[in-house]
């Protein structure tokens, strides 16, 4: 039942702020965002050859040092973590019952509330388009 009501939340009933982010649902627009990021990276990379930077550490002044470090460090961390998981991952109830990993958060500390579009629609007449 809960799931039904959740699925009824249509894009039109979202707040104006949320609507500004709906582009992430569109594959084309996400691709555009990636192209923009790639373009930005290209510009930043080229700037390295144009501008002289101050540097203290060895190799820091080599063009592309930070770009390469950023890309490789990120990849190393993500891939390394993937390998690490193979060694150390355990089922969620591994430490149960002495750890909270496998238990639900107690309901009395929560205030679950479903998104209520009607209220919001009243608040923003005219901004629907």
């Amino acid at each position: 039942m809960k799931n039904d009501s959740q699925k009824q939340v249509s894009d039109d009933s979202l707040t104006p702020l949320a609507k500004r982010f709906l582009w992430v649902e569109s594959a084309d627009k996400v691709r555009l965002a990636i192209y923009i990021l790639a373009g930005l990276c290209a510009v930043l990379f080229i700037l390295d050859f144009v501008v002289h930077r101050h540097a203290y550490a060895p190799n820091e002044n080599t063009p592309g040092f930070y770009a390469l470090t950023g890309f490789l460090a990120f990849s190393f961390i993500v891939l390394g973590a993937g390998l690490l998981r193979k060694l150390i991952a355990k089922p969620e109830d591994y430490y149960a019952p002495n750890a909270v990993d496998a238990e639900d958060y107690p309901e009395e500390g929560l205030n679950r509330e479903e998104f209520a579009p009607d209220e919001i629609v009243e608040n923003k007449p005219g901004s629907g388009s």
Partner: protein
Amino acid sequence: MLLSAPFLFLIASAVLAFIPQRLRAPLMLVTPVLALISIIGFGTGNHGVLNILNFELVLYRIDNLSFPFGVIFCIAAFLASLYAWHVRDLTQQVATLGYAGAALGGVFAGDLVTLFIWWEATAITSVFLIFARGTPAAMATGMRYLIIQVLSGVLLLAGLLMHFHDTGSIAFNHLGLQSTGTWLIFIAFGIKCAFPLMHNWLQDAYPAATVTGTVVLSAFTTKMAVYTLARGYAGTEMLVYIGAVMTLFPIFFAEIENDLRRVLAYSLNNQLGFMVVGVGIGTELALNGTVAHAFSHILYKSLLFMSVGAVLYRTGTSKASELGGLYRTMPITMVCCVIGAMAISAFPLFSGFISKSLILDAASKNSYYVVWFCLVVASAGVLSHSGIKIPFFTFFAHDSGKRPAEAPMHMRIAMIITAFLCVFIGVFPGFLYSILPHEVSYKPYTFSHVLTQMQLLCFALLAFVYLMKVGLHPHELRRVNIDSDWVYRKGIPSILPGVAASVIALNTRSREWALKRLERLGIQVARYASPTGPLADGWGVKAMVGAVVVLMFAILLFNLWPNA
């Protein structure tokens, strides 16, 4: 002295129990404001100096180093109290104010005895924020947390007694690693600062606290420890390397952790690493960096814990595998979370940028090139787990189908104020720089600095996009990952029954063996000593003479022995 910031908090937390429900939350908001006024009003100097049994206790030392910590602790207590406006649980409210007061007390303590008292007080007040979750699992986690925190306190006490024995002073100034006593104090600080292999209490306990309790916990204990290290061990070279390790290893754990509050706990550990490196380098620039980073870190880390907490409050889970697509119905929480993520990733115009760069610059200027490179790599790692993972898997990624309502009004206000501060400090660093311990001549916004930071972050983002595209980015799985706390949570408990069984078996067997020997001895004695046995026979003359000769020879030898 009752008007000093720590005591204001303690008095308020005691008063809470006696006032009506509706006045409690407002009192929790007013107290940090009054405390901040107290800190500024008292001004620099040693206040509350007591002479007890020839010990000079300094209860309220305000100087260039303790002042910024006092200010940020008051701000953090205010924001956390605002975020917890809805909480009606008196235990949590009392614990929050008591804990904040204890942490302020620790920061303003001018001697080691006062520090010890507040040090233990932070442990016994904060644990109630974990117990307050109310489940047996939370009780067990809280006990683990308490044991380690109290252990740290006991080491501090032992260290300060030895230090007093060595030097005759309990003053808390620069200590350095020079004696057993100062080593013990160093380890006590290191436990609370979550040094490698002493860090597990943090990742174990913080995700087990209540929604609001985690926000409170994230601000105080570890930063009080950073302050004490900066006070007592600035320039201790070992800290540079400890800090470098701290920045690196939690990243890998954060990357694969499913519970987002635990991801943030690992990320907290990693941020502490940057501060510890700054303490280790110990120059004016580096210490400024440590203090500035602690200041901005408390804000963006609170903000991240608040946004994940708001999601937990609305959906009942903080697990990445269960979340996704929440930006539709929680856009304000999402925007605040992204601001926190950009601040911790140190994007230009955000607070992390203007504080972390002080430490990185200090590392390269002092020729710690390897450490400096570790910090650069760790900066890319911060982007991966806090900058991308937290907001992306909560609010975007695959749609979980959950459509929770936006966070309650008071949480939104708390998050928006915190987010504003993260940006404000980033855009106008002068305000933060003006309260740092030493004069700041550093300019964060140089062209080459902005350029290099943007290169690092944008190419790391590009790596993220690439790894997602090719499917190499680890998926979010419902798993726990074991860390070094496995030793005391599983390892030792699992071998204990075996060890006990072997001790019992050894005991039984050795008794059996001894009894058997005794029995055999009895039989032998009976055989020799019986009326017909060999001992009952009379001695022959030859044997008697032989025995006397041997005895006399022995006496002769004995008398010949020099100096006998």
